């Protein structure tokens, strides 16, 4: 049995020197006396002879009590911890120990040549060595979830397994969910307490403030309740703060392109942002733009002030169609995980759009598609780069045939009296094409409803009721965004230079949007009539705008906002699922593929190189002949490659939208790079008595404490002993004094 005590605050042991104070006072007092020439010496000497032994005993006793009290105080200040086995009462007691290891990626911070996580692993393993056989052990991986990765009684074999598990414990590319962790600890603690085991819960973490406190460093009620529940379960949480004292970190916190649809030879702006989470400014930060794995451009940010974000932008033109990757990469700092951010972009070739003029006018100025042509066909610049990904051809409604739709990606129908949904438009949709319909004075609502119903594939979710509003009054209503998470609506929400609600609409067709129809925008009238409606489609996309594309019912086409409105609407329709290619860690990658075109097997290559072979799972009942790929293992930030095996000929449009080599990007949720720590005092202020005990960072302190993980601290009994000794000293001194008076 090891008999050594460990002191958690060894510096305080210097107080032991104070134990000499009573001795010094005693001897100093004996060196300072006054002299009295005394006559009755015989009686004094006789009294001394009689009292000598008693006096010596009393003096020694008082001295011992005083020295003992000071020694107890000094030892208590040193926070001694000893093997519990040293305590006879505790010796046969088995324990329940819950060890949680913060696996959030901030633990990958490199400090003195090793990561904080590695240090946590070592401490956790050294703790294992201290557990007694028969103790119950739970090891939790504390990431976005609290995963119990080990749960067993301690034995030599179990100890080896647990060490192996700790070594292999993978970091999560996510933050630690403290609430989930506390719940899991409480669950384990309740089980252990149910078995009559005293429970000790230990968390090795870098103790980021953002994990434990709300913005503004306020307490989180859910965490507070969980801590109290934990205390009720008899398992006070001990936190070993392993965080580096330096904590310098920059993060790529944003990466996006300026348009929904990227096309070959059409320049895009790649926008990124770098945040400095450090307490000091960062100067000369190099930022590289990586395209398809190659660094193509670089910038240097002169200064990123502490706690602030700086934007960075690159202009880039993809020359080839296909799925490309974009990355923004920072100079490596101590936490590399958040130094990059990725995008998967499906770059289209030119998007061929057929404009169908329902007015069938001879003069272009009189066509219902006049403004659409202008908006979709801006003049290109001199660098061989187009300003628009769209190539436009206009036909009258009478010439809307299958031949006209050959090679077209999208059709925009303006003010047509009817829709031939069962004809070429349906075929286009089946190929994954886009149909955008503007209504107008020529619209025959009954014919539309019949055509929509005839389509019988979801389009029936919409019914036209008839025109509303009076154009002569010019009393307009405005567009109001509705589906805030739709890329088209988001485009307007994110920008200050364009707006959706600028123009007036004084006449429109009232429609009834059935179940499944998605209203993207409404009018500002009291009943919020749908203005832009997306209809559910298994393939392809169909959007209806309930007013005109010309200036018959609205001045919208004359507003500059009309150009981005049409572009973004068509882009979101022509490149559906663009947002689905760019996910955050933990979000599932979901995509429907035409079942007939591809084999069932799919290979997915993760950023770190791991390959998963999965199968396309049948979506629904397979009535529409497509399969959904649902891939959940997106717990790693970076680019994922999806490889499908084509088993039959495939329409070029489908092939372009569903390439055999696909990519999707998974990025960090952000914020985890904020390494600002909290501490014992702040947690105590936030959570009171239920706050976890924190072993503050410091060289060797955590190691010292963990080495005694099966140990109990003795400072409290020592303080009691000190109080008792002082009380005994006071009593004895009074008692002896009274006897002598």
């Amino acid at each position, binding site marked *: 049995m090891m008999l050594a005590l460990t002191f958690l605050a060894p510096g305080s042991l210097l107080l032991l020197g104070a134990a000499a104070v009573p001795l010094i006072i005693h001897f100093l007092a*004996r060196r300072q006396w006054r002299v009295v020439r005394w006559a009755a*010496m015989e009686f004094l000497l006789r009294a001394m002879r009689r009292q000598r032994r008693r006096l010596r005993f009393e003096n020694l006793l008082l001295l011992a009590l005083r020295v003992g009290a000071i020694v107890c105080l000094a030892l208590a200040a040193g926070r001694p911890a000893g093997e519990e086995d040293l305590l006879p009462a505790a010796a046969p007691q088995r324990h329940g120990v819950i060890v949680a290891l913060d696996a959030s990626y901030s633990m990958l911070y490199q400090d003195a040549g090793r990561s904080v996580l590695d240090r946590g692993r070592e401490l956790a393993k050294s703790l294992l060595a201290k557990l007694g056989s028969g103790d119950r052990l739970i090891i939790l991986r504390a990431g976005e979830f609290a995963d119990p990765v080990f749960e067993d009684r301690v034995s030599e074999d179990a100890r080896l397994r647990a060490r192996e598990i700790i070594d292999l414990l993978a970091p999560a590319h996510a933050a630690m969910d403290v609430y989930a962790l506390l719940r899991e600890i409480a669950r384990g603690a309740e089980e252990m307490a149910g078995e009559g085991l005293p429970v000790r819960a230990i968390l090795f973490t870098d103790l980021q403030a953002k994990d434990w406190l709300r913005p503004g460093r306020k307490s989180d009620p859910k965490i507070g309740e969980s801590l109290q529940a934990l205390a009720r379960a008899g398992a006070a949480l001990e936190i070993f703060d392993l965080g580096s004292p330096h904590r310098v970190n920059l993060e790529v916190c944003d990466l996006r392109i300026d348009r929904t649809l990227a096309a070959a030879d059409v320049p895009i702006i790649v926008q990124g942002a770098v945040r400095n989470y450090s307490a000091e400014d960062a100067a000369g930060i190099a930022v590289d733009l990586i395209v398809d794995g190659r660094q193509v451009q670089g910038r240097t940010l002169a200064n990123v002030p502490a706690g602030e974000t700086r934007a960075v932008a690159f202009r880039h033109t993809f020359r080839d169609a296909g799925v490309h990757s974009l990355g923004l990469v920072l100079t490596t700092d101590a936490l590399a995980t958040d130094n990059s951010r990725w995008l998967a972009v499906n770059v289209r070739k030119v998007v061929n759009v057929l404009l169908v003029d329902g007015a069938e006018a001879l003069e272009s100025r009189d066509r219902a598609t006049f403004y659409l042509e202008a908006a979709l066909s801006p003049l290109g610049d001199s660098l061989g780069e187009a300003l628009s990904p769209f190539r436009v051809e206009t036909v009258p409604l009478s010439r809307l045939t299958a031949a006209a739709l050959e090679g077209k990606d999208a059709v925009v129908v303006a003010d047509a009296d009817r829709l031939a949904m069962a004809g070429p438009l349906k075929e286009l949709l089946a190929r994954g094409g886009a149909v955008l319909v503007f209504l107008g004075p020529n619209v025959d609502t009954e014919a539309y409803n019949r055509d929509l119903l005839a389509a019988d594939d979801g389009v029936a979710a919409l019914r036209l009721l008839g025109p509303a509003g009076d154009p002569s009054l010019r009393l307009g209503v405005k567009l109001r965004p509705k589906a805030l998470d739709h890329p088209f609506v988001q485009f307007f929400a994110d920008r200050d230079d364009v707006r959706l609600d600028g123009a007036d609409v004084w006449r429109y067709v009232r429609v009834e949007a059935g179940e499944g129809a998605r209203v993207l925008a409404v009018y500002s009238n009291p009943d919020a009539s749908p203005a832009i409606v997306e209809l559910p489609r298994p393939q392809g996309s169909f959007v209806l705008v309930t007013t005109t594309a010309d200036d018959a019912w609205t001045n919208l086409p004359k507003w500059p906002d009309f150009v981005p409105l049409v572009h973004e609407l068509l882009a979101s329709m022509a490149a559906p699922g663009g947002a689905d290619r760019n996910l955050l860690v933990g979000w599932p990658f979901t995509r429907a593929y035409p079942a007939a075109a591809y084999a069932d097997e799919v290979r997915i290559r993760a950023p770190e190189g791991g390959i998963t072979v999965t199968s396309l799972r049948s979506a629904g009942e397979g009535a529409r002949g497509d399969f959904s790929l649902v891939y959940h293992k997106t717990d790693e930030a970076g680019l994922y490659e999806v490889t499908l095996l084509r088993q039959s000929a495939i329409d070029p449009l489908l092939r372009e939208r569903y390439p055999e080599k696909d990519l999707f990007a998974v990025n960090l949720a952000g914020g985890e790079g904020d390494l600002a720590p909290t501490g014992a005092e702040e947690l105590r202020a936030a959570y009171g008595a239920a706050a976890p005990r924190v072993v503050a960072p410091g060289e060797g302190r955590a190691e010292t404490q963990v080495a005694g993980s099966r140990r109990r601290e003795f400072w409290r009994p020592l303080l009691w002993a000190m109080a008792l000794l002082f009380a005994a000293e006071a009593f004895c001194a009074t008692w002896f004094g009274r006897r002598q008076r």
Partner: protein
Amino acid sequence: MRDWRKYLDPRALSRIGRLELKARLIVEGYIAGLHRSPYHGFSVEFAQHREYAPGDDIRHVDWKVYGRSDRFYVKEYEEETNMRVYLLLDVSESMDYGPPGGLTKAAYGRHVAAALTFLALRQQDAVGLTLFDDRVRTMIPPGGTRGQLQTVVSALEDVAPARPTALGDVLAQTASDIRRKSLVVVISDVFDDLDAVQTGLRRLRHRGNEVILMHVLAEDELVFPFTRMTRFEGLEGTGEALVEPSDLRKAYLAEIANFTAQVRRRCRQDRTDYVLLSTAQTFDVPLATFLAARARSRAR
């Protein structure tokens, strides 16, 4: 009116230099107290009348004679002259102890001896003085003349305590030197072998003397008021000790109480008058003790 009684307090006397004057003041203070006490007229007897003269105390006017003769006569008292008083004052080194600013035991003893001399001479007694330590240092035979007081006081003022005590031997020697029955007053701290002291006292008593032992101890010796660590250096070469006084107070006081009790018991055994005097005590106690013993001696 002068308050004579204040001179019974040793502290009041400390501002007065001459021992003779002190003795007179002590006795006057004592007598002034007696006039208000049941002991009034205790020590004198009526002798004759004489005509009143200005300055006479009207309390001594004989009102019965006045009633018969219509003239004022005052009573004159007969003062006895047949007592021989021996004062034995211990001037050994141990008597030289006293608190800073206070009377030493020797000084207190001098005051008592001088006052008793004055009182005795006033009573027409013959007074002698013996100063001793381990032997007789000064011996003044009893005398009742006016100059006796001056002689005694001079002897008291001249002596300086320096030697150890041998009270028993001195008492034995004194017993053999006294030829006729006398009143012997011993003033000492009795820091000597008690058996020898008792033997000496017994010899004095066997020769028919009335003996008073005035046991003088310093106030500090009786209460042991010390608080700080103190190095006690014994007078008369009795050793030394470094002492935390509070540790020993109780035991010491028990020792000193035992000592005084033993002295008192041995005195009682030999019918020797015993009075314990503290140096802080007023002087009326020794004077009253003296007068009581004198009266008892005359009554025999």
